C-alpha cells in the first residue's frame, strides 16, 4: 500500500538536503506519493547557475563531500521526480524573495506553491522537515 509523504526542505546544509533527497528518491521509486516543498535556504540550489556548494554541518558532511561515490542531493531529487513522479515544489514566497522566475529554476521543479496549498495537500500525509 502506498503512503503519502510530504517533505519540507528549509535548511541549506549538505547533510539535511542529502537525507531529504534520499528519502524522497527511495520512497517515490517504491510507489509512495511524494511531494517536496523547497523554501528558505534550500531553494537557491535549484536556481539555474547557482554554483555555491552546500556547506557541511559536521564530519559526516565532509565524508560525503570527499567520497565521489555518494550521489548528489540534486541527482537524487531528480531521480525522485523522474523515476517516482515526486512533485518538487518551490515555495512561492521564497521565489519572490529571491526575485527569480520559474524559468530560472531547474526543470524538475513544479509550479510555485504557497504554504496554504501545500499544507492542504498534505492532509493525511506523513510530514518530514529538514
Amino acid at each position, binding site marked *: 500500500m502506498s503512503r503519502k509523504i510530504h517533505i519540507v526542505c528549509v535548511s541549506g546544509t549538505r547533510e539535511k538536503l542529502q537525507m531529504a533527497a*534520499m528519502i524522497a*528518491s*527511495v520512497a517515490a*521509486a*517504491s*510507489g509512495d506519493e511524494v511531494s517536496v516543498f523547497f523554501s528558505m535556504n534550500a531553494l537557491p540550489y535549484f536556481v539555474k547557475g547557482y554554483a555555491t556548494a552546500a556547506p557541511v554541518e559536521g564530519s559526516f558532511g565532509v565524508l560525503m563531500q570527499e*567520497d*565521489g*561515490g*555518494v*550521489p548528489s542531493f540534486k541527482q*537524487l531529487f531528480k*531521480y525522485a521526480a523522474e*523515476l517516482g513522479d515526486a512533485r518538487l515544489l518551490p515555495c512561492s514566497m521564497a521565489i519572490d524573495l529571491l526575485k527569480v522566475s520559474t524559468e530560472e529554476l531547474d526543470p524538475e521543479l513544479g509550479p510555485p506553491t504557497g504554504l496554504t496549498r501545500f499544507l492542504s495537500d498534505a492532509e493525511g500525509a506523513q510530514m518530514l522537515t529538514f
Partner: protein
Amino acid sequence: MSEPRIIDARDTFCPGPLMELISYMKRASVGDELELLSTDKGSVNDVPEWIAKVGHELISSEQIDNVWHIKVRKAK
C-alpha cells in the same frame, strides 16, 4: 535465454545502486533479467526489499570478491 543486462554500480553508496537499478528497470521489458553489481552492503537488503514491494522477481544474490551480484527479473 539471453544474458542479463549488467548494471555496474560499484563504488557508489546508498541509494545510488538502487536508483541505477530502477532506472534500468523502467526501460526494460517484462521478462528481462538485470544483474546489479554493488559494493554497497546496504544494497543486499535494500534491493530485495524494493523488488518485493514493487512486485518484481529476485533471482539470486551472491557475493563474489567483495562485490554483490544481485540478479532480478522484471515481472510487470
